[in-house]
């Protein structure tokens, strides 16, 4: 008598079981990551200390986690919106760059009085991010041009345009580095409380707006149809093209805002490489969160923790920063695999032969 296991396709699974499975897979991913770090030379006993105690229970580190998290939340939400419309927006970085360029343009040309400067910068950042997403979405809707290619290629155009500005017209005349002049104090995202950046409450508000958009507005219902059954959506009268357009432009605007958060919240100026890694992280966060805005906010916090802990590992143990990306990848693989258990059920059968 041999025991065997049979696989069956599940029809439906309660959301709390799904959440439990995903949480389990994340824990497994963290365990695997921990093992890799131990092999790389971090003492096993120090892991918990480095990742949890020193990052989350140390006021200053927690600040930097939150600080790091807000642009990640923005790109994560941007990913959620576009992916829900079945639009593979790989151009988050390009949209982010243009968002930051738009905001910096306001500072360079001194538009508006100091009192309204920051709101203007935010509006410009969102508008420019949105504009950078228009071409690919229209090409997709009108001519069926694959958005994976168009958004990705537009990133390169954005990156080179940024370099063109940083080494040319917008270079800080005071020194030789490729960045813009420092923003004025009223052009920076203000701090409140004990050194917490204003970008954190902004990120939370935006997350709630996206949650409303997806769950409470009529667009959310349309998005569900576009996401799950595009064919049916068209037949039963969902305005498919308009829904996709709206979601993608919203996505671009949020990516633009992420650009502003880095420029006006962290760097205090436009630099030539501020965007690096955010596009990938945005996709990854949206994926980890299954395009759910609340989960995306949590995933962004997790990734931010990794970033911050990764930096201190770099300093104390000479662990290369690439290790952080490796951990991200391990987490994604674990969560992706967990999907299998959500879709299937494993049952033990008694073997006959």
């Amino acid at each position, binding site marked *: 008598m041999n025991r065997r296991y049979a696989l069956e396709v599940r029809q439906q699974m309660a959301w709390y079981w799904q959440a439990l499975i995903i949480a389990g897979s994340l824990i497994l991913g963290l365990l695997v990551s921990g093992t890799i770090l131990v092999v790389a030379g971090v003492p096993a006993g120090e892991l918990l200390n480095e990742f949890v105690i020193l990052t989350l229970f140390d006021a200053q580190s927690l600040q930097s986690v939150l600080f790091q998290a807000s642009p990640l939340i923005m790109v994560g939400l941007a990913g959620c919106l576009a992916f829900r419309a079945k639009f593979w927006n790989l151009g988050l970085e390009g949209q982010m760059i243009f968002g930051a360029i738009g905001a910096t343009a306001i500072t360079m040309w001194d538009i508006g009085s100091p009192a309204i400067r920051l709101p203007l910068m935010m509006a410009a950042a969102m508008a420019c991010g949105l504009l950078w997403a228009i071409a690919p979405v229209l090409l997709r809707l009108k001519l069926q041009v694959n958005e994976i290619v168009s958004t990705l290629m537009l990133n390169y155009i954005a990156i080179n345009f940024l370099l063109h500005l940083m080494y040319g017209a917008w270079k800080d005349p005071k020194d030789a580095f490729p960045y813009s002049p420092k923003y004025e104090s009223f052009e920076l995202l203000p701090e409140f409380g004990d050194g917490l950046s204003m970008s954190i409450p902004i990120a939370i508000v935006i997350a709630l707006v996206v949650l409303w958009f997806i769950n*409470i507005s009529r667009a959310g219902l349309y998005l569900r149809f576009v996401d799950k*059954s595009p064919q*049916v959506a068209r037949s039963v009268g969902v305005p498919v093209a308009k829904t996709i357009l709206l979601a993608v432009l919203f996505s671009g605007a949020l990516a633009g805002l992420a650009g502003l958060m880095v420029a006006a919240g962290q760097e205090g100026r436009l630099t030539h490489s501020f965007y690096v890694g955010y596009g990938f992280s945005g996709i990854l966060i949206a994926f980890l969160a299954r395009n759910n805005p609340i989960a995306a906010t949590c995933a962004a916090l997790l990734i931010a923790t990794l970033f911050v802990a990764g930096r201190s590992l770099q300093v104390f143990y000479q662990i290369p920063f690439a290790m952080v990306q490796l951990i991200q990848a391990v987490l994604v693989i674990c969560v992706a695999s967990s999907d299998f258990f959500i879709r299937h059920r494993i049952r033990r059968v008694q073997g006959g032969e």
Partner: protein
Amino acid sequence: MSKQNAIQLNGVSKTFDGFKALSDADFTARWGEVHALLGENGAGKSSLMNIVAGLYGPEGGSLFINDNPVKLKGPKEAAKLGIGMVHQHFKLVTPFTVAENILLNLGHIQSSGLYRERLRRVSEDIRAMAKRIGFEIDPDARIDQLSIAEQQRVEILKVLLAGARILILDEPTAVLTEEEAERLLTTVQGFAREGAAVILVTHKMNDVLRYADQVTIMRSGQTVKTVKPDSVSVDELVRLTVGESGTGTSDQPAERTPGEAYLQVKGLTSTGSHRALNGLDLTLNKGEIYGIAGVGGNGQSELANALMGIPEAVEGQMELIGEGDLSEFDAARRRSIGVAAIPADRYGAALAGPLSIADNFALGDIHSGRYGPFWYLKTRAIEADAAEAVKQFDVQGVRSLKQKAALLSGGNAQKLVISREFNHPPKLVLAHSPSRGLDVKATEAVRDRLRAARDDGAAVLLISEDLDEVMAMADRIGVMSAGRIVAEFSQPADRQAIGQAMVNHV
């Protein structure tokens, strides 16, 4: 040997996420017989046969093949034991040829030799087998170039070439015209005469009476009785399938005076190279059911799509008198006028399977503002309306309005579509094969809705490949052939004459 049991199932149970699909079902089929498995939608026929085919593992009970106890670990093992199942939804790779599909299935048997050589051998086998059983199939034809009936023959060849001696056909006649069904069932009867066991899963009484040697009746997951079809009356069979109450009768519609013209279609023609629609004209009056009969594939689907606003490249007029051209209306406008659409492909054009019943229902009234402005969806109002409609239209199997629509059985899914489309009294009803795949009770419920709409003054267009349905429902009948209406009949119509018109113009 010949009278040994081919299949025996004892006390089999199966649960899907808490729903008992099968409870303590028994079933026995002998070699050399056509054994029908009769029951309403959701009675558990397909589940039972999926267990025999190794697709599902049973939770209790035992399975014997050729009187030997077996535990199937999967469909491959079932195939090795000579069990072949032709599913209701074909499992063919559409861009591949017939021979490639069959070779794909035979992978484990014909594993030696170069690919081209193996393909050539399979093509020969296909030709030989097709000739033996009287099918005409070109092994090099691509699946997407074949009609539904031809694809079904490919499926049958596929399981026969894999060595099946126990042939299970799941609702094989649901997609076929009368002649095609007759031909198919005569062929499978031939297999049984040669000693194979054929199991015919069906809900069509006619198939059972004419072709089955034995019939097992299933109701709500249980096998009720096994009898010889000629030993009981039709009434008795109906009573066993539907239970004590609720046998439907469909009387021929009386002659009635039609209202004024409402929908005028003129010169409707497909713009593509294939003229599926070729200058179709028809006039639909208020207060009548206009039935479109015809052999499948004569432009019915294209006509339905064009009228229902499902993307379809056509030119010509579809004027709704007093409103304008139907093709220029968006969904909101169609809803506000009162155009109800019941497409043939339920999960391809009417319901989003992965979404909830409430979400699917909401689409019906979303444009009118009843469920709130654009920025706010009144979920409570949707759920209240959906609950009311589910009750009123007798949609069963709804455990929660948040349940996926895909979990509904065919009949209940169709009732959900109708509950949405008829939530406001419709003025124009477009129905394409509305009772396809539905059991007696559900069919009757659907037909009653269409008749009630007609009696309330709506113009009803019924496109159906089932002539019985058209005959039972329509006040006027148009016969469609090669993309146009070639003949029109008023009730009482001569069935013979309609049949003639259907085939003569091909």
